[in-house]
């Protein structure tokens, strides 16, 4: 290739790479809100599967906190948590077993929790959901996937200070960092729990990473070998 060819390649190839970098890695022109988790509780959210002094994992503690503080308004169907008023209904227990199936996620079976199709649940809980709507203006959403949709910084700030993050929201603040020194820790545990429902546990993540690296290395090496093989073959066939 002559000099002009190299310049053209750099202009066209380079701008194409920059273009896709903007689209698929980082676009400084796009505006995004940032929410931060407080430094002192970052560790809690970082690894929900870590055991605490109580012998339970952070995620398990977060789950209990969620049931106590949030399940009066929110369901978390992907982990078998339904509105508290429903969960205590003996009929629901039967429906869970007949219409639902035990929660099974990333190779782990949770025999005590049931995943029930949305329409079955919403039909059964119709009255309760409508009552919530009447008092809060809307049905509080199921929060199964909100960890993925909102990110941990947003959730942490929103659960601590709902009105500050989402002005005019009808979700009440459930924790008060002024009165309760453990408020931030509790919220962090709830966020950690929501994370544990939506992300694979460390062992599974490790498997995925290894699998990914092996596949990528395989294709790079296979490409190199093909290239080498081709060069030898072409030499033998008298091309070049």
């Amino acid at each position, binding site marked *: 290739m002559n000099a002009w060819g190299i310049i053209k390649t750099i202009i066209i190839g380079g701008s194409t790479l920059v273009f896709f970098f903007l689209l698929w890695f980082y676009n400084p022109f*796009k505006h995004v809100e940032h929410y931060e988790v407080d430094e002192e509780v970052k560790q809690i959210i970082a690894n929900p599967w870590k055991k605490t002094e109580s012998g339970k994992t952070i995620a398990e503690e977060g789950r209990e906190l969620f049931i106590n503080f949030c399940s009066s308004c929110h369901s978390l169907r992907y982990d078998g948590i339904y509105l508290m008023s429903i969960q205590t209904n003996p009929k629901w227990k039967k429906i869970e077993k007949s219409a639902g199936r035990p929660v099974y996620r990333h190779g782990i079976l949770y025999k005590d929790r049931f995943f029930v199709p949305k329409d079955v649940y919403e039909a059964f809980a119709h009255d309760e959901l409508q009552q919530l709507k009447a008092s809060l203006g809307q049905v509080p959403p199921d929060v199964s996937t909100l960890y993925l949709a909102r990110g941990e910084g947003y959730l942490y700030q929103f659960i601590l200070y709902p009105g500050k993050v989402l002005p005019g929201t009808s979700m009440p603040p459930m924790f008060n960092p002024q009165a309760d020194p453990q408020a931030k820790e509790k919220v962090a545990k709830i966020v950690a729990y929501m994370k544990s429902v939506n992300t694979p546990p460390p062992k599974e993540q490790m498997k995925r990473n290894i699998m*990914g690296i092996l596949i990528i290395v395989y294709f*790079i090496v296979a*490409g190199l070998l093909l290239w080498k093989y081709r060069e030898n*073959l072409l030499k033998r066939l008298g091309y070049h």
Partner: protein
Amino acid sequence: MGLIEKIIDWVDERAHIREIYRSLLVEYKVPKNLTFPYVFGVLALVTFAIQIVSGMVLLLYYKPSIADAFDSATYTIMGEIPFGWLFRHIHATGANFFMAIVYLHMFTGIYYNAYKKPRELVWIVGWLIYFVLILTALSGYLLPWGQLSYWGFIVTTEIPGSLADAPIFRDFFKAIAETIVLWMKGGYVITDITLGRVFGSHVLIYPLILLALVGIHLYLVRAAGISNPDGIEYDKKKHPDKFVPFHPYMTLKEGAYVMWYLAVFFFFVFFHISHFLPPDNFEPANPLKTPPHIAPEWYLLAFYEVFRSIPSKFWGFVAFNALLILLLLLPFLDWSPLKSARRRPLFFIAFLVFMFSSMALTILGSMPPTPMNAKLGLIFATLVFGFFLSLPIISFIEYGWYKAKGGEQQ
């Protein structure tokens, strides 16, 4: 070894595979000087195969009903089914890569003027592929039934409604607009019926059409012969030194490129999926809650930016459709006897203007709609139209040069 050979012989005696292999791959000669961008056609083919295979796996678990769609994708496929996440990641990455590769493939064709005689039909069928591919991507995007899916679909299906904004024959255009919108949505509100037909289109109708079109496309490429980056149609008989056998010369080279392409592909699948499965789409569709910013996917942003930077909705709609049509008519706008940007300085400049303007429109489309952005959008839209409309003029000038040189190709 002996047995395998015997089996192959047995099959070959009946199916004549070796003969076909010889005539289709070895005796098929391609130009020796093909450049790297010529690989994009093959990469598109590979990506198409990836989409079909990963799509078939997803099809086993996806449920096309409003109550179940979101959960079947996000709960069942992502968590319950072993490696379900992998296939969803692959399919989402594949969709974006497919569009990217097809764009690169089209720009390659434009750069080397591969749409010119005798390859006009290759280009036209390619354009049809592009069109159906957009429909496939749009329909697939609705299926996970997240907020972006739902609102993206609403916005897209209402764009033809802009026709109702016509300056004249208002009733006429309004009737057309309403019909198109109704037809795309499958009713006045989006229900299971809409989802069902979008699902059917995405998993069966569009892929079948694509399969047929890709087959015709490849046949036409073979029939017309691959273009030459030099812009010169060498005769295979007179210049055998300019050609090489497709196999092993090209197959091994492109094979290596395919491997490296897959390495990049799987980097995204395993380690960088968030741009292809965007966070906002992990919130189930909620018809009562409009998300703050809805924009089409990146591969439509250029058209979207043209649409929204023109103050009149009607003319915006006309403008972006005109762009699509101009793209189709490219072989006829550019009637110059010269081929390939390598030998056409004027065309080379026009190409750069076109490429950078398309990129700029795409990036602008991802930004908030400020008056400044609308102004920039208008400028770049004008440049893109300028590219297409300058082609007949450039062709006219080049025709003069060509005649002055005595009508010689070289």
